[in-house]
């Protein structure tokens, strides 16, 4: 049996308000997140009981503070969306998490829906401010002064695979994946070697190979072991090494090729054959090599360029994953990966309608050529930042898109629909549909649970420990009822057929567990 593909992304956005005396990013983020409403109802709170962010994949728990919020604060910070995703304030940034998806294409749709949600929120929030104040939201990862904020990817993965196999197989892949997934950046940060322009926004911030932290001494492989699902069966690979992408093509390939490499690791064929001698400094080296051809030193004495290393992974997938196990989307991803590597070999600038870093480089070069500016000019840095601006009239990526200068993967209609419709093939369907139909009877939500509170009676907690269950096919009939009370009763009665309707239970046999 093929292990189910479950993927989700988290995006932290940069935020700034024009014409204020003092920037208050926490206040601005709260304003923006609270200016969005996808249904007419009180907010549901986020259930932090289900979270274990300090659990380390290497088999231990790190001491640290976990946040438990008062109910009022909780609903001010959190919004759980009827598309199954989550929208909240994380530290000093608005953050959007896609619902659980099964394909790279769906991730593109739901990530782009998130960008629209942020822009709607911005417009609503701005209407409450004095006329001269403007809110600007950037989908990027740095303020260019050493402060980075994240773009995280999550992939469900079988528990039985050795974590070391993930580390060995993924480090060389991630170090070189930037040539496809980088968003481009003017300058350098974090005491790294100078650069006029580099491929990745985030490469300068990675200082270790493996670790739990996401905020300091960032690791190429993050060990957070919090599957938000049955932890006997699953682990979640929490990838923090990527950039936020504007380009749909970059998102699609980044997510698609990573999913395929994870399948390769599950087959046990990757191991440490591409082990790099110095991956941490290679991260920065690759980011600064705009030809993508400079050789990296491997432990086995060989040298390979980033393009060659990516090609090696692609070849192994062709060799070890049988054709009949590749979906149409998988095949499309492999073909686009191959196309991208061949174009990069010929001349990376051929991808100036596909990859963020190349699109941005083309734009910056044209601008500096026209005006004779050098790379340190503030207008050049402004273009870099404004490329990520989510305002349709001001954002430079969005202007290029409007002018037909960008290759796309999905269409606008499906993105707009994804603002209010959950994916139909994961538990996000159950979550999103319940929130749409029965919000007033839901007390709290987490990724793998939902607490109903009907007429102020005892709370009923429904666990959803298998993310590929809870789909329309499995729970469509169950959700076909007029009230939450009816739904809860149906689930209770369905105890003996829970295996059919989905894993809405804390264990294989259970049903609803009364928590009060």
């Amino acid at each position, binding site marked *: 049996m093929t292990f189910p593909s479950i993927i989700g992304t988290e995006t*932290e956005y940069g935020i*700034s308000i024009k014409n204020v005396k003092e920037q208050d*990013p926490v206040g601005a983020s709260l304003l923006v997140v609270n200016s969005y409403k996808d249904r007419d109802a009180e907010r549901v709170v986020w259930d932090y009981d289900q979270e274990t962010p300090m659990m380390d994949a290497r088999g231990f728990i790190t001491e640290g503070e976990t946040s438990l919020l008062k109910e009022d604060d909780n609903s001010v910070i959190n919004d759980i969306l009827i598309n199954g995703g989550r929208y909240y304030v994380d530290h*000093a940034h608005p953050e959007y998490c896609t619902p659980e998806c099964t394909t790279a294409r769906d991730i593109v749709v739901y990530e782009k829906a998130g960008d629209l949600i942020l822009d709607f929120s911005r417009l609503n929030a701005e209407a409450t401010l004095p006329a001269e104040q403007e809110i600007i939201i950037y989908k990027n990862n740095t303020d260019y002064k050493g402060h980075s*904020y994240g773009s995280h990817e999550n992939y469900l993965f079988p528990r039985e695979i050795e974590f070391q196999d993930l580390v060995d197989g993924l480090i060389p892949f991630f170090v070189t994946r930037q040539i496809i997934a980088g968003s481009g950046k003017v300058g350098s940060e974090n005491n790294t070697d100078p650069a006029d322009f580099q491929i990745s926004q985030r490469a300068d911030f990675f200082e270790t190979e493996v670790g739990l932290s996401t905020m300091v001494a960032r690791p190429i492989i993050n060990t957070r072991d919090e599957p938000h699902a049955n932890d006997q069966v699953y682990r979640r690979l929490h990838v923090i090494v990527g950039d936020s992408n504007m380009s749909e093509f970059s998102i699609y390939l980044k997510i698609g090729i990573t999913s395929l490499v994870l399948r390769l690791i599950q087959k046990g064929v990757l191991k440490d054959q591409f082990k790099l001698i110095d991956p941490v400094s290679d991260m920065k080296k690759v980011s600064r090599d705009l030809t993508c051809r400079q050789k990296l030193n491997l432990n086995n004495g060989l040298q390979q360029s980033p393009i060659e290393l990516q090609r090696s992974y692609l070849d192994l997938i062709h060799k070890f994953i049988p054709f009949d196990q590749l979906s149409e989307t998988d095949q499309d991803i492999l*073909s686009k990966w191959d196309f991208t590597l061949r174009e990069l070999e010929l001349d990376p600038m051929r991808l100036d309608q596909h990859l963020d870093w190349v699109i941005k480089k083309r734009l910056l070069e044209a601008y500096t050529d026209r005006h004779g500016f050098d790379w340190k000019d*503030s207008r050049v*840095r402004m273009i870099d930042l404004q490329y990520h601006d989510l305002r349709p009239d*001001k954002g430079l990526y969005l202007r290029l898109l409007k002018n037909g200068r960008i290759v796309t993967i999905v269409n606008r209609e499906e993105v707009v629909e994804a603002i209010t419709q959950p994916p139909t093939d994961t538990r996000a369907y159950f979550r999103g549909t319940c929130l749409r139909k029965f919000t007033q009877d839901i007390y709290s939500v987490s990724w793998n649970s939902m607490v109903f509170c009907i007429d102020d009676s005892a709370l009923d907690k429904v666990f959803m420990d298998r993310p590929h269950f809870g789909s329309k096919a499995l729970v469509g009939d169950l959700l076909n009822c007029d009230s939450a009370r009816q739904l809860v009763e149906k689930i209770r009665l369905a105890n003996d057929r829970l295996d059919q309707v989905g894993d809405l239970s804390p264990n294989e046999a259970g049903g609803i567990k009364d928590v009060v």
Partner: protein
Amino acid sequence: MSSDEHQEQEEKTTQTTEQQRTSDTENIQPDTEITEKGEEIKDDLDRLLDEIDEILEEDSEEFVENYIQRGGE
């Protein structure tokens, strides 16, 4: 597998790879087309550069300096 079969298999593989290459390289056009495409891109870019001059945040020096975020994640 006999050596004949093996050869046949290899030929098939080569054929498929070549077909794949051909279909995937449709974007690589003859020189004149590349020049025309290049001109088109340049015109597009010129238009966008005109737009950028209009929409770029004013006081970019100050704006970029004041854009300070807290680290996240």
